[in-house]
């Protein structure tokens, strides 16, 4: 065996450059490029999403409570090697000599924030501090506080009984969602100043947080030790938030997974073809080696060495390409991804090598067995064909190995099962169609002399080989069409998400008496009709389930809630459970966002007690809703029925789309100074650029899979090229004209292409609909343009590639061809 291994080592590059190993080599390069680029990208995307989630919290894990949190948790965190910080948040007036402003005060320890960036600048805009807390007696304030109170750096302000010196301006800070409501400007003070302020009394609304960060293992150990913690302390984990960061990113990840899954399948198909050709061409070599004394072990050593070298070199090359491509993808994904990402882990590299080894040995091992057991007598019989019956076993082995591997790799059994079922159905259908074709054609009578009839006769004569080609063409096309449709519809759905009519301004604090003047103003000045939604500040106090006692409603305590009441279900909402109230129904009911309801363990029929406008009232949960947050319309976790909400004191909120918004809003603010406006353009632009980047990334990955598909088609066209070449030479020798041979080959490939493409298109509609509905949460309607173009492409490509593959032998001297073969 050692001699065989050394022989394989010595002959490796000549085998690669001779073309026998080349298609196999390229298949592996492509499979590894695809899987590793997606792997590198996924790895870094995941890190990015976790970083973003951690930044939203300012930490990896947060304990949150409305009452002081026992310091034992800080000790427990220290024992688990975690960093920690403390923060208390409350609303208070920031007072100057002439004015005051209600501000959200964040009192923090010096280690704040643990994640994300705190950017403090002086009045010239120069950074003065990046993390920590101000020294006791100093305060950092947002520019809005500075402007409203007409403050200068080093001016004095007071909060309660404590005086502060304005040390810096807050330009950026993490954990934006931790302030009371996004509408109040924030100020940051040292936590040691809180007692001196004297503003926190019994009953004051304060949110206490302990922030923690550290390695995933330490965090998990710490979180486990928190079991049995009092119910009023909530645990917020960055990983949970990361999961909810965006359906778009989730969908693009699904697409990447799907693309790499298809790429691997297509690469396996291409490799099967390449290995088949490699094995049949190697049969002469192997038989000769046997004649000259090579043992079974020698042949095994030779083959295993060569394939191992293919795995090493091709996957190394694939990893280099994959890493480069990932860089390219990252540069297009800058809208979504943080600039300073951690380097990718070694996982994609290991994955690349495993993929290469799997693809090669799953497809080649049965052939290695056939080659090592080759009888030397083949040399004297001139018999160098591998029988199809052996191939069927080979394909079954490859098929099951492939799905075992894919199951382990993607850990998405549902997806793998759908793909397996599709593959079996399509393969079986293609087999039946191929068999019917041969049966149909064999009962027809053909006369020689007509090119296309000769082509049809060739299909019959090739029998199982023709069926195999129909199957391979069909499968390769199927995956390409499904991916093309998925890519197009995914990108379209993203484009539709943020259309031109997306509102770019939110207006708050609108009182009843403002409604008509504001409506008239917008109508006159901007030809816009605003739609006002009532906004009720409330608080969820408790929940109960009629007929049941001691139900544990998670995450219910101290929930501040923005409420509204509505007659109709808002356009950007869809009902997922229960029923919407009918007009005239005077029952006090509430409709809740499905995710919030799930997080609170609520069910339809539960009773909720709210307090709002100095009134405590009870409502029955009547429905759950799915909310499309990207609509940028006013959306609410809790919508009350008119009977419950119409009597409550409320202000109004609206969102509008404005052209030339800056000038318009300046005039509006002068006319209505008490109305608060929030410009959404920056957020919308960020969303648009994120989606555009994700679309580009999807295009790159699709392109990669497309190349893999083309390679598979070429591999299957070339799989019986040697036989075709010999037949062409014989035809030539017995007097057939070039035109006749050309027409015969062209008609053969045209029929094969037509059948494969038709079947692939039909099944792609079924597979796409499953993927859209089950995995992307999108509505599927067949994209006729893509399907039509794919159909024409499929037929055209097989036809052209097939004709090109035998072109050389059509024009070569038949004598030379026959002599060389």
């Amino acid at each position: 065996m050692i001699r065989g291994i050394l022989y394989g080592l010595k002959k490796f590059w000549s085998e690669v450059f001779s073309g026998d190993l080349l298609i196999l080599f390229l298949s592996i390069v492509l499979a590894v490029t695809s899987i590793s680029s997606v792997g590198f990208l996924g790895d870094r995307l995941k890190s990015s999403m976790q970083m973003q989630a951690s930044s939203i919290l300012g930490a990896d894990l947060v304990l949150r409570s409305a009452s002081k949190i026992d310091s034992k948790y800080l000790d427990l965190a220290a024992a688990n090697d975690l960093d920690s910080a403390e923060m208390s948040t409350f609303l208070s007036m920031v007072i100057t000599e002439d004015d005051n402003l209600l501000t959200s005060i964040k009192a923090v320890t010096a280690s704040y924030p643990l994640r994300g960036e705190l950017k403090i600048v002086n009045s010239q805009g120069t950074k003065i501090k990046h993390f920590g807390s101000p020294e006791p007696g100093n305060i950092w304030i947002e520019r809005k506080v500075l402007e409203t109170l007409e403050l200068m750096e080093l001016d004095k302000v007071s909060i309660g009984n404590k005086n502060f010196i304005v040390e810096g301006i807050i330009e950026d800070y993490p954990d934006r969602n931790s302030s009371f409501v996004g509408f109040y400007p924030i100020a940051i003070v040292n936590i040691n100043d809180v007692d001196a302020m004297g503003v926190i009394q019994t009953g004051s609304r304060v949110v206490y947080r302990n922030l923690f960060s550290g390695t995933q293992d330490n965090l998990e150990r710490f979180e486990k030790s928190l079991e049995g913690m009092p119910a009023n302390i909530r645990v917020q984990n960055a990983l949970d938030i990361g999961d909810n960061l965006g359906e778009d990113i989730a969908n693009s990840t699904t697409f990447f997974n799907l693309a790499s899954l298809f790429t691997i399948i297509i690469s396996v198909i291409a490799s099967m073809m390449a290995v088949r050709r490699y094995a049949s061409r190697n049969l002469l070599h192997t038989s000769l080696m046997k004649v000259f004394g090579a043992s079974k072990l020698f042949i095994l050593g030779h083959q295993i060495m060569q394939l191992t070298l293919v795995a090493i070199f091709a996957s190394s090359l694939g990893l280099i390409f994959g890493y480069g491509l990932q860089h390219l993808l990252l540069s297009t994904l800058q809208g979504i991804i943080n600039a300073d990402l951690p380097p990718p882990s070694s996982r994609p590299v290991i994955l690349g090598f495993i993929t290469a080894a799997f693809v090669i040995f799953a497809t080649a091992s049965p052939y290695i067995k056939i080659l090592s057991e080759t009888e030397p007598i083949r040399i004297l019989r001139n018999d160098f064909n591998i029988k199809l019956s052996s191939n069927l076993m080979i394909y079954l082995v490859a098929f099951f190995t492939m799905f075992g591997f894919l199951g382990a790799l993607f850990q998405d059994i549902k997806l793998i099962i759908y793909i397996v079922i599709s593959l079996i159905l399509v393969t079986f259908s293609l087999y039946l169609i191929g068999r019917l074709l041969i049966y149909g054609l064999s009962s027809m009578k053909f006369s020689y002399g007509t090119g296309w009839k000769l082509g049809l006769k060739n299909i019959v004569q090739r029998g199982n080989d023709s069926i195999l080609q129909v199957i391979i063409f069909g499968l390769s096309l199927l995956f390409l069409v499904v991916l093309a449709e998925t890519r197009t519809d995914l990108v379209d759905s993203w484009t539709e998400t943020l259309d031109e009519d997306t509102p770019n301004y939110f207006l708050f604090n609108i009182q009843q008496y403002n409604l008509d003047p504001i409506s008239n103003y917008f109508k006159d000045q901007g030809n816009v009709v605003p739609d006002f939604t009532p906004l009720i500040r409330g608080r969820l106090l408790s929940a109960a389930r009629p007929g049941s006692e001691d139900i544990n409603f998670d995450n219910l305590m101290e929930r501040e809630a923005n409420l509204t009441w509505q007659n109709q279900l808002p356009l950007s909402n869809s009902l997922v459970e229960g029923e919407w109230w009918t007009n005239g129904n005077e029952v006090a009911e509430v409709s809740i966002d499905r995710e919030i309801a799930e997080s609170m363990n609520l069910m339809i029929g539960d009773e909720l007690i709210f307090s709002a406008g100095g009134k405590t009232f009870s409502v029955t949960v009547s429905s759950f809703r799915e909310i499309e947050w990207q609509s940028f319309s006013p959306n609410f976790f809790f919508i009350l029925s008119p009977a419950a909400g119409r009597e409550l004191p409320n202000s109004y909120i609206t969102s509008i789309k404005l052209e030339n918004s800056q000038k318009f809003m300046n005039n509006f603010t002068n006319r209505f100074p008490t109305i608060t406006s929030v410009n959404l353009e920056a957020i919308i632009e960020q969303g648009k650029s994120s989606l555009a980047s994700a679309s580009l990334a999807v295009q790159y990955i699709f392109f990669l899979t497309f190349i893999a598909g083309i390679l598979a088609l070429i591999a299957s066209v070339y799989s019986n090229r040697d036989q075709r070449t010999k037949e062409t030479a014989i035809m030539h020798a017995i007097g057939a004209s070039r035109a006749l041979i050309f027409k015969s080959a062209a008609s053969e490939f045209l029929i094969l292409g037509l059948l494969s493409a038709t079947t692939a298109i039909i099944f792609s509609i079924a597979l796409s609909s499953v993927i859209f509905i089950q995995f992307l949460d999108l509505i599927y309607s067949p994209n006729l343009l893509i399907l039509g173009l794919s159909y024409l492409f499929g037929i055209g490509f097989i036809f052209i590639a097939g004709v090109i593959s035998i072109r050389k032998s059509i024009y070569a001297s038949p004598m030379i061809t026959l002599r060389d073969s």
Partner: protein
Amino acid sequence: MSNLILEVKNITKEVNSPEGLLTIVKDINLSVEQGKPVSLVGPSGSGKTTLLAIMAGLDLPTTGTVRLLGSQITSLDEDKRAQIRGKDVGFVFQSFHLMPRLTALDNVMLPLEISGDPQSTDKAYEALKQVGLSKRAKHFATQLSGGEKQRVAIARSIVNKPKILFADEPTGNLDKKSSSSITDLIFSLNELIQTTLVLVTHDLSLAEKCDEVYELSEGQLL
């Protein structure tokens, strides 16, 4: 002590065919003395090549035994027979069977590389020189004429200094001039390297150059 290098006893080979069991060779007995060239003649389909394959250990008979170079090869497995072939047996085929993607030199080196001979390049070059093709050493097989291909095949067959050389219709694919020169080459090399030639041919003039001629007809020796 016996001087026999090859001893064939009661060899019969049967194969399954669509028409039923087919007997290719039947009850063959022959022996070959070391150093004495023998030929096996007969018309196409008479079973010559099958008999050669069995004698050389490339195939097994249905019944009967073959003793080659002192070993009863019919009772050995394929790997043990390969070992004997690699060490002491040479082959020349009608269709040359050169590896098209290898150079003439690489083709000749093949048996030596399999046996792990460290001097394979020098020995292969020497063998090419013996067949008069040293200048064609770097040419690929596809760049050679039929006669040249067979010379390379002959160089390959003698490169490991075999004790016995089996040649299956070595001139069957060549023109008259090339045939004559290849015939001369085979016999002169046979003299030179002191091997035993077993030649299968339907060319009687070629067969008659051997010390002994066995004639085969419909699978049986006449």
